[in-house]
């Protein structure tokens, strides 16, 4: 360096500076851009989450109101009463009324969500398609419980015009 003229030093400095800028540009194109994008995406996601949560918190009164409204329609069973006997009995009753033969039934586990309970009834059935439709219609509209058919499978049965298959019914209720 000692033997270099001032002009040569200036040229060297300019080259070094260009190299530094090239390094910065290379860094930008070789990973920095993705890092920025990822960091920005994380922030956007977190902001959205925060806004969503804030919005939901601000709607608390609304959800409380809706809950009261929905809960009023939920059937109530005695505290010590077995839900299987209640709901399987109700399902059997509706099936029998609509000419659906239930050959096997299995109660599911009770799951709690707040002060609401949810359980399932799995059953094997046989009947005409028309009976099945009527059975499901009554099941969905009965006031004796809140039922929904979660799973339904059938195939032609042994007797002509009859179908047989499985069904899984969800029941929702509250306990006293």
């Amino acid at each position: 360096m000692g033997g270099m003229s001032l002009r040569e030093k200036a040229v060297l400095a300019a080259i070094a500076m260009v190299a530094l800028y090239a390094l910065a540009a290379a860094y930008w194109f070789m990973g920095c851009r993705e890092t920025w994008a990822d960091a920005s995406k994380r922030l956007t996601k977190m902001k959205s989450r925060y806004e969503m949560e804030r919005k939901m918190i601000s709607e608390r009164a609304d959800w409380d109101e809706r809950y009261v409204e929905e809960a009023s329609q939920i059937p109530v069973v005695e505290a010590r009463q077995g839900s299987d006997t209640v709901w399987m009995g109700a399902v059997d009753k509706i099936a029998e009324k609509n000419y659906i033969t239930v050959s096997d039934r299995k109660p599911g586990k009770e799951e709690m969500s707040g002060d609401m309970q949810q359980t399932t009834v799995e059953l094997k059935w046989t009947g005409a398609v028309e009976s099945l439709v009527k059975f499901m219609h009554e099941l969905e509209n009965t006031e004796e419980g809140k039922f929904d058919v979660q799973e339904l499978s059938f195939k032609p049965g042994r007797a002509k015009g009859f179908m047989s298959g499985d069904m899984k019914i969800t029941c929702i209720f509250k306990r006293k």
Partner: protein
Amino acid sequence: MAEEVHIAVFEGGELTVPAGVGKGREVAFAVPLNRLLIKMVRVPADRRDDMADYAMPILKAMSPYPDEPLTVSCEVVREVEDGVVVVAAALPEGSSDDLATALDDAHLNVMRVDALALGELRSAWPKLALDGDTARKMVLFGGKDCISLFVLDGDCPVAIRALSSGCNMRREVMLSLLDAEEFGGASALSEIVVVGDVPAEGLDAFAPVRTVGREGIDPVAGIAERTMEATSLNALPDSWREVLDETRFKRKMKTWLGTAGGVWLLVMAVLFGVPKVYDYMTHRQETMCKAHKASYNKVREKKDQVEAVRLVSNHDLGALETLRVVTSVLPENVTLKRWNFKRGDKLTFSGVAEDGDQQKIYSFKDGLSGVMLSQVSEREEDGDTPFFTDVVLPSGVRSKGATATFDVDCDFKAKEVE
């Protein structure tokens, strides 16, 4: 706005720098008259463009270092018929080592060199009251290094000399008058004006002597005024100018490198810093989320309960409605054989076209794809939502004797709405 001029003065063997002038600053440098080779020169009109070259041999003849290259500067003081009258001056480097050392020690960069006496004359001019008088006069300025002597015809100098303090004044005045006569022609000396500490005894033999006080005379201010004039004398030696140019170049280079380096650092700081800022902001959002987590969880639980009830209560996408939808688009002579429904997930079924019409099965598939959720829910907001998100014939249509069999997979995923 004019740039501020800083004047450094070398007088009495000491360099005086105005307060606040830091290292590396460019200054105008005023030196005593005895440090310069200075001479009044009459330049012919045809040499006006190279006055310095014309004056060079004249000053070289005066130089104690005749082999040393001189940088001559000329200041035009009067236009005459056959050319111009100039003050030619040069700073002989051979006798300026102490000046250069003092400037180096003070880390100053000299951009011009002037005679302190010329600044003194400029500053003292109003006080000398010489305007309007064309008679020959002599002005003597006492100084720490020498006595500066000017012989003036009106406002134009005809002789400039530096006299040593212990010299024979009468003899030097006589020689100066002879110089003036040789240069400007014969003219009677009308007055001698003495400024400052000058032994003026016996000078009244040449002309009346008038003494003027130093009050109000500021040589530095005079030099500053002269520095602002582009045509004024600049006896800066070439070697000093090279140093100045180099210093200026270095300064520019440093500025450029500093700026480019600073911008580069800024760019790198942005490249590395922005993700950090994003991370910081993300962390802040996380902290804010944590702060309201308890409240949020309570509402979330309530919402889940409401949705659980609604899911059971809302049969729009239920088993019965699905069966109804499929049978509503089922073509004639097509029978469903197997049915497998899972709410919110999938419906798979198989069937047979008794008449073997495959086109009918494809139309059936298209019919299933075209069913809209709004046809079931009767809600306006479900208008563009299909009942099934996807309908496929995974095995195509298979001919079996006079019949055609098929399987259908229908997807519900992501379509289960509140």
